């Protein structure tokens, strides 16, 4: 039987009908160059040694796999573990593909790095590696995210990046991707687009899955060491799909490990004309082509892409990575969704039982784990992917969970100006 693991990284970038490279001719030479550079790099021992070195000495890998004793007892079902990618440098899994891509960009001789960002985690990680490698850095961020993730804007600017709020369209992640693509079209020779998820034209989905797959490899050896077995189930939140592909990839050929991707259910699976109250592409989306790739998108019957909604900026995206769409289509992964309200409850429960403040993106995985662990047997095990830590969401979580005191605090602070 052929390996699903290697098919997902195949050099054509097609996954049955999904994936591809649907870009204007202007971008084809860039995609071709990037394809060559990436596949050369991963065959180069020196490159792989440097990648490994940076993972250990800069990012702080391996990140821990933590057994959640209290949460396991509390729910009374399966054994629960958390893979804590929040303990990476910059606080989320995004640094994994940033380190990888910046090494590829350097190999290509690029001087200027651009990136889009939703929650700001990918932008922050990009700004960080650009500072370390002495490269010019421009981050595009939808105005909505720019405003709701102000702390990350501040950090990116401290790291020397220029952060550009995008005022077009829905002013969200999708619009930031479109503007970054236009920037790349204007300067495909000197600029490198450090795309932050497993979306976009080939080779981005393959490349980012490759760089993120370190997460799943670590989980495998950590589970073998701690529990002497593979997990029965792995749950990850899913926006574009980078953290999900990162933890799923190493287990694709282990058919007994069930893999669950949790989309943002937002305020519920309802929608008006152009605006969805959620970002659950597999609930109400359909196959389409946008931002350079073919996958599931929230769209109307004419093919106009609809706006999404989520409490977490990182999941607030109308499209999903082509590999995720393929794995769903062949039944290798399951998809489901968590509502904003469930996410906040899950965030609190994990914090109070285990002392881990998860990012709101990751809290979607926690919410699903709470539902699922109860239905599993005591000898079974479940891994929650905590892809990022929750400090960045202070202004959202405090606003929702401790509104009065937080407002008072902000008022007091502004008096001191």
């Amino acid at each position, binding site marked *: 039987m052929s390996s699903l693991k290697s098919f997902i990284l195949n050099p054509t970038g*097609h996954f049955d*009908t999904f994936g*591809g*490279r*649907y*870009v*204007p*001719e*202007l971008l*084809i*030479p860039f995609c071709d160059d990037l394809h060559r550079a990436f596949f050369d790099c991963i065959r180069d021992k020196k490159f792989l040694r440097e990648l490994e070195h940076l993972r250990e000495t800069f990012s702080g890998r391996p990140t821990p796999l933590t057994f959640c004793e209290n949460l396991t007892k509390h729910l009374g079902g399966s054994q629960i573990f958390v893979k804590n990618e929040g303990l990476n440098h910059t606080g989320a899994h995004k640094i994994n593909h940033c380190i990888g891509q910046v090494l590829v960009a350097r190999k290509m001789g690029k001087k200027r790095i651009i990136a889009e960002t939703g929650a700001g985690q990918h932008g922050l990680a990009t700004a960080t590696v650009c500072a370390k490698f002495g490269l010019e850095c421009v981050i595009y961020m939808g105005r909505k995210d720019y405003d709701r993730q102000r702390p990350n804007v501040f950090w990116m600017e401290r790291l020397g990046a220029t952060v550009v709020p995008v005022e*077009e*369209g829905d002013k969200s992640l*999708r619009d930031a991707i*479109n503007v970054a*693509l*236009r920037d790349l*079209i*204007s*300067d*495909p*020779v000197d600029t490198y687009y450090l795309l932050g998820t497993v979306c976009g034209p080939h080779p981005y989905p393959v490349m980012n899955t490759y760089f993120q797959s370190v997460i799943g490899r670590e989980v495998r050896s950590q589970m073998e060491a701690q529990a002497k077995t593979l997990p029965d189930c792995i749950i990850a939140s899913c926006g574009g799909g980078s953290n999900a592909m990162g933890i799923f990839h190493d287990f694709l050929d282990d058919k007994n490990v069930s893999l669950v991707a949790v989309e943002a259910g937002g305020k519920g699976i309802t929608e008006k004309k152009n605006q969805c109250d959620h970002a659950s592409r597999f609930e109400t989306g359909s*196959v*389409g*082509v*946008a*931002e*350079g790739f*073919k996958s599931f*998108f929230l*769209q109307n*019957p*004419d*093919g*106009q*892409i609809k706006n999404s909604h989520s409490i977490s900026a990182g999941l607030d995206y109308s499209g999903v990575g082509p590999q995720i769409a393929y794995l769903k289509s062949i039944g290798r992964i399951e998809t489901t969704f968590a509502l904003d309200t469930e996410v906040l409850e899950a965030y609190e429960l994990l914090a109070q039982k285990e002392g881990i403040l998860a990012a709101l993106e990751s809290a979607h995985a926690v919410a699903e784990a709470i539902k699922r662990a109860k239905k599993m047997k005591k000898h079974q095990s479940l891994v929650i992917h905590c892809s990022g830590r929750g400090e960045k969401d202070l202004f959202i979580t405090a606003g929702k969970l401790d509104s009065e005191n937080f407002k008072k605090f902000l008022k007091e602070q502004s008096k001191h100006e």
Partner: protein
Amino acid sequence: MLMTHIVAGYPDIETSEELVQMMADTGVTYIEIQIPFSDPIADGPTIMQANQTSLRNGTTTKDCFQLMSRLTKKIKTPLLFMTYFNIVHAQGVENFCCRVHEAGAWGLIVPDIPFDEEAEEHFLRNCKKYNLHAIQVISPLTTDERLKKIAKVASGFVYCVSRLGTTGERKALDPALGSYLTRVRKYIKLPLALGFGISSRAHVEAALTHADIAVMGSKVINLMNETSKGKQIETVQKFLKTIL
């Protein structure tokens, strides 16, 4: 030869219809009618905003087909649909091409479906089947190797992007245009259209020293944006007359 461009439904379908009619009457050789898309990645700010406004006004693909049908009954000028591949895909590639043919269009410009995806989408095959010219777009960075392949699938004319970047006005054209188009002509024997950044009579004249067709897009929309409603058609016509 001059090719002009409009966004269907911008500012509204009636004005679009009058604009195309006027362009044909004024002597434009080809007219591109863009079916608006929510995520037009190859377009600069002017055309992108026109897309958004048209969609906000509720323009549908069906409205665009009907507009095309009405126009091709009245005028002889070859009309092309320009749009993005998701609009084609949403209707089904064969069904889309069939309906475009029935509406009487001459060709299609879909910038985000490179020939590399033909095996998956059969876009070129269906254009051929329904007698539509699938206009290929190339850029100064397109390699000789790709030019050879594009030459094999090209039909009607080939759209050469004058410079790196998206659609939109610029002050001057790239001085290296001559050598770029000479290289293209080595492989492509069809007429060449030159677009992106052409906004004045001087630009058109410069473009036509190298290419067969000059393409003007954003300029028309900018002119309309600067003009009060009711005078838009007249203003655009006055401008086109200075060029033709």
